[in-house]
């Protein structure tokens, strides 16, 4: 890699982080407005990240090192690789889904390595909500059957000829959208980070480590929104995708602001229902098309 490419990568990372944090801040503001609260300014997420980044840490005596320290680093590694593989290289969708699955490992690992009962409970709930991944694979298969390729650049160029996929695969788009909703903070499916278990898997990761996880979360939000826009709307340019990102954040925050946190079993049952619908859609496409 030469210096120009390195400069571009750094810029891309900073861009993803800043846009992701601003969108998450906007998300919080809109949710507050829906609930008739004034709400924090939209740079609140960024301020939180900075605040946590400059705070003292100490490893709990119950923690299992080095897994405990590796988990926040892994969070950034996972989403940076997703950013590079998706936005820069426009590589295979399946690899990015695999990386998304590693996000689950971060949740499990944080829960397992800290030794805190709250963290462990968050991890257990994360295992429960593994049902959220099944529609994802069905979505990938459906996209493959329609476009005959899983490389993102191929999918985007397919849509430039045939029109956006959201019109052809509305059920898959809906399933992916539910995934976006469940990834956003305060979502009805956010049983892993529910406030009834303090902060779920994040409980024992405080200070600097929490700052790192926040950075990873911001990049994750950006990447997932970009994926949705690229796969289902066919816009892969990161500047042109920006208005759509704001629009999707609006819709997500309206949903999240109006719905309560579901009980774990309800959340899982709802996700399994969606999975069954998407699988039926896939089966229908395999047999009849």
């Amino acid at each position: 890699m030469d210096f120009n490419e390195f400069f571009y990568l750094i810029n891309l990372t900073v861009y993803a982080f800043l846009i992701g944090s601003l969108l998450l801040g906007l998300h919080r503001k809109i949710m507050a407005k829906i609930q008739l609260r004034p709400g924090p300014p939209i740079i609140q997420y960024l301020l939180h990240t900075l605040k946590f980044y400059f705070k003292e840490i100490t490893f709990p005596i119950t923690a299992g090192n080095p897994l405990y320290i590796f988990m926040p680093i892994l969070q950034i590694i996972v989403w940076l690789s997703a950013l590079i593989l998706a936005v820069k290289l426009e590589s295979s969708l399946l690899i990015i889904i695999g990386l998304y699955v590693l996000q689950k490992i971060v949740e499990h690992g944080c829960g397992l390595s800290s030794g805190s009962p709250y963290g462990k409970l968050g991890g257990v709930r994360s295992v429960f909500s593994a049902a959220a991944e099944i529609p994802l694979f069905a979505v990938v298969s459906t996209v493959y059957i329609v476009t005959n390729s899983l490389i993102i650049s191929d999918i985007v160029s397919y849509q430039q000829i045939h029109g956006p996929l959201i019109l052809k695969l509305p059920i898959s788009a809906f399933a992916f959208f539910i995934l976006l909703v469940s990834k956003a903070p305060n979502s009805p499916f956010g049983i892993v980070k529910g406030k009834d278990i303090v902060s779920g898997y994040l409980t024992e990761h405080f200070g600097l480590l929490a700052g790192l996880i926040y950075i990873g979360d911001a990049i994750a939000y950006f990447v997932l929104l970009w994926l949705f826009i690229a796969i289902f709307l066919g816009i892969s340019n990161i500047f042109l995708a920006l208005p759509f990102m704001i629009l999707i954040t609006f819709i997500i925050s309206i949903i999240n602001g109006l719905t309560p946190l579901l009980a774990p079993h309800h959340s899982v049952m709802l996700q399994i229902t969606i999975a069954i619908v998407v699988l039926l859609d896939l089966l229908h496409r395999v047999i009849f098309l």
Partner: protein
Amino acid sequence: MIDGGIFGIVPFGDIIFKYSMFSTIGFVIAITFTILVYLTKPEKQLEAQKFGEDKLIDIPLHELKNRRYMAIVCGIATAGAMLTQDIFDFALFLTLVGIANIGIVSAVKREHVLNASFQYGLTSIIATLPLFGASALILAKTGTLSILELHHLNKNLLFEKILYGLGMAGETGVAPYYAAKAEMFRAPGSPYILMIHLSSLLLIVRTVEILLTI
């Protein structure tokens, strides 16, 4: 195009390893986690007591060694399953992962964990039937088990694919069967349990790739 470009193919006689972008990333992840889990000391759990201070639970060494060995076996099996290009080999790796998963938690001296492990074991034993059955059906229908070959034969394998997927789901203990895994997660003192989930999640992604390819 599914796996984003092939770097190379390594044939060991009958066994063929393929290094594509997807499988290399999966392989690296599996190996990294195996090393990490080997290095990690187990966490201690803090149990609230009725009277007096909280109690730290320590795990004895002999219990720990067994589990660590099983976790490493699980990691290596996952790494192998990422690379292999043979449906039968992949099924064997899957069953090996299933065995190792039971082994990881079977040394825990807690009743509910052992119960969950027992149920998971039953599921994975039952799931070998559709898994190997599907492999046999594919062999009978097409005459080959190599994924690279099956990619070029355009045969309708829908029923076999569904059977294979069901077998994989039972073996890794996801979706319809995952209730036992959440109980296994609660075993004290273990980064090793991470390997259970890592292997199952990676194997699901790999299975999806295989099912899309053939």
